[in-house]
């Protein structure tokens, strides 16, 4: 039955997340950006409430929430500040990989590391953007692999103590492997980031012919391909949800500002050039939200079937988050451009988020290929 009504549990979770977003996240957004890190007391609060473990399987000590519940919570948290949410420690995108695994696909040592509870994982994905060429080379040598090269800028790259890598080997075969930073001599390139998501601990990681032993390999070949597809689907849905939260924040801020700001003797909301822009932002935000919800509900039943809806959701969220945050800056005029107001940060964060999580055109082409490849009509529910 078609319904847009959240469950009581979801409402309770969201209500707490909204409180955290307004009291613990939003007030510290600028500080976190300026320092490039997040206060420990904030991390503690978020962690105690379980918000760092929404996606983690119960067997790893996580909450293992359905995606439809997670996306509502992530949107509510990101309403506070996307930059902070993206810089929170934990398994992050790596949790989606764990969630997508077959039971026992990870060996006991690897499981133990995850269960330590202090792990922060950076997910280095050299496959999702393969059309632009590989950054990393993975060569098979006996039973081991040798990894060389420098990753793309990766979220949590600085603070992570573990890495999960999705890489193509020299034959183009996908390999998913695991690295504990302390057992490898990796170079973390902190870089000179000025653009957006500055508290997200973004860094490039360089590998100088690092040996990856067989027990660090999680999956190869077809298994790795399936696993990475499922993981991508889950990540895309969760990230799109965060973007919805940012869109809603920018929309609400711009609405309030235009309701208060006066020009030509009246509040500027009364000018149709302004109010119609707000209306378009309302529509875009609602669309992005609903596409995320739809993808999440499909994924909760069957992740494979959610590949298309997830591509649709992330593509639209990519489009929408840039449109809405840019519109918010525009509606605030000169005030929108200066750091006295949060919208300029949100606009930068939005664009940085889009750059970290895949190209909109790429998603369109992938979705289009799926549509063309099937005789089944893609939009018939």
């Amino acid at each position, binding site marked *: *039955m*078609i*319904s*847009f*009504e*959240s*469950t009581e549990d*979801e409402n309770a979770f969201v209500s707490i997340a909204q409180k955290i977003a307004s009291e613990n996240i939003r007030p510290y957004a600028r500080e976190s950006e300026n320092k490039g890190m997040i206060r420990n007391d904030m991390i503690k609060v978020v962690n105690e409430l379980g918000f760092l473990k929404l996606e983690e399987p119960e067997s790893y000590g996580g909450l293992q929430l359905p995606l*439809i519940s997670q996306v509502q919570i992530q949107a509510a948290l990101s309403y506070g500040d996307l930059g902070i949410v993206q810089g929170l420690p934990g398994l992050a995108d790596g949790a989606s990989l764990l969630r997508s695994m077959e039971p026992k696909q990870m060996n006991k040592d690897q499981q133990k590391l995850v269960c330590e509870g202090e792990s922060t994982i950076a997910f280095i994905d050299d496959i999702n953007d393969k059309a632009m060429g590989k950054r990393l080379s993975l060569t098979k040598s006996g039973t081991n692999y040798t990894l060389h090269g420098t990753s793309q800028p990766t979220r949590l790259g600085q603070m992570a103590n573990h890495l999960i890598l999705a890489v193509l080997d020299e034959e183009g075969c996908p390999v998913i492997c695991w690295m504990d930073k302390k057992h490898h001599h990796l170079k973390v390139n902190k870089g000179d980031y000025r653009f957006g998501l500055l508290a997200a601990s973004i860094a490039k990681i360089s590998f100088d012919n690092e040996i990856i032993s067989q027990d660090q390999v999680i999956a190869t070949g077809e298994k790795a391909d399936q696993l990475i597809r499922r993981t991508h689907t889950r990540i895309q849905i969760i990230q799109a949800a965060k973007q919805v939260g940012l869109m809603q924040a920018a929309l609400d801020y711009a*609405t*309030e500002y235009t*309701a*208060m700001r006066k020009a030509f003797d009246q*509040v500027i*909301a*009364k000018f*149709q050039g302004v*109010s*119609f822009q*707000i*209306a*378009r932002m*309302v*529509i875009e935000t*609602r*669309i992005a939200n*609903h*596409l995320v*919800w*739809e993808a999440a*509900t*499909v994924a909760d039943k069957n992740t494979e079937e959610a590949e298309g*809806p997830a*591509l*649709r959701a992330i*593509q*639209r969220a990519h489009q929408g988050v840039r449109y809405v945050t840019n519109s918010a800056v525009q509606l605030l005029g000169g005030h929108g451009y200066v750091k006295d107001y949060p919208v300029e940060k949100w606009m930068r964060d939005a664009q940085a988020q889009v750059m970290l999580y895949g190209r909109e*055109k790429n*998603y*369109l*082409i*992938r*979705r*289009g*290929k799926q*549509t*063309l490849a099937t*005789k089944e*009509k*893609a*939009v*018939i*529910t």
Partner: protein
Amino acid sequence: MISFTLSEQQQQIKEMTHWFAKHEMRPISMVADKIGNVPEEWLDKVNQMGIHLNTSSFSNDKNDSANKRGRKEQEGNRMGVIATEEIAWGDPAIALSLPGAGLGGPPIQSSGTKEQKERFLTIFKKDKARWGAYALTEPEAGSDASAIQMTAKKVSGGYILNGQKIFITNGSRASWVVVFATADATLGRAGQRAFVVEKGTPGFSSTRLVEKMGLRANETAELLFEDCFVPIENLLGGEQLYKRSRSDQSGFEMAMKTFDSTRPIVAAMAIGIARAAFEYTLDVVQRDFPTSGKFYYLATEMLAEIDGNIAAARLLTWEAAWKADLGLANAKEAAMCKAYAGQMALDVCAKCLELLGPTGLEGHIVEKLYRDVKVFDIFEGTNEIQHLVIARRQYEPYGIRV
């Protein structure tokens, strides 16, 4: 619980209406467009099958306990948008020509007296095809519905109507028309009233059927009211309704409330049109386009955009219908789905024509759909009016009326 899975009943309705659209509507689509009407024998046949255009399934009592938990949830609006998408997929002009109360149904359903509902909504029987209609727009008042100039002068036993209505779907063939007029201009919107004017009433006539860019098979009439006496029994809701709460039960409010249930239906039609164009074009691309290179990538990108936009419009529409089923205020959502779907569908048809290229100019249904779909961004409130409604709701918490 959030869900986008159709219930068993919704799925059945969808499949049944799709079958009808595919096997009964689509085969006569291009012919009906060419001759400029839907053949009478076809309309009689579908009427005997019990297929009607019904847009009036919304919950009309926001305090109805049936809408609260514990009793079976109403789903008429969701059923309505699901079914409407399918029949519009078949052909929008024919869909609008289907017998039934059409857009005239909702105001009677929501505001009519028990006697009026009995009189006007039970005439749609299998013995003969009948229509209802809704007349609000005038030559000088379209988007600004509060500015209608048609007058209703109170006289003994009823009202005398004078004025003109334009762009009235099925207005000439309708057995009755819900007509909005101003009874007391000094009261502004509160002075408006709605009447049900029956065909054959002296002083009421259809003066012209207009020719249009699209929806050519559907009748669009101009109506004239010259000293047209309408008995008090035909004042929608009766005198008591307006005396009880003058402020929110004017004819204007009734007209606006009607839109809350009809706009999702119109949006669903636009989605059906977009889907028809998309599916037709997808077949052509799959059959005729190269499987690599520039044109292949052009097609993949455009088809993905179309697919996503249709899905987005459908979700907005479902939300508006879902809220209506629960008896929740849905004016904002109704305006959102209408605004987005109308524009989206036109854009989809344009993209499909671009993919078809010059061959799309003749003998393909997409060019017809493009002509048909433009008005979905105009009628039942233009895109600009929808934006106004959305903005008004958005600024409501700040006490600002845009």
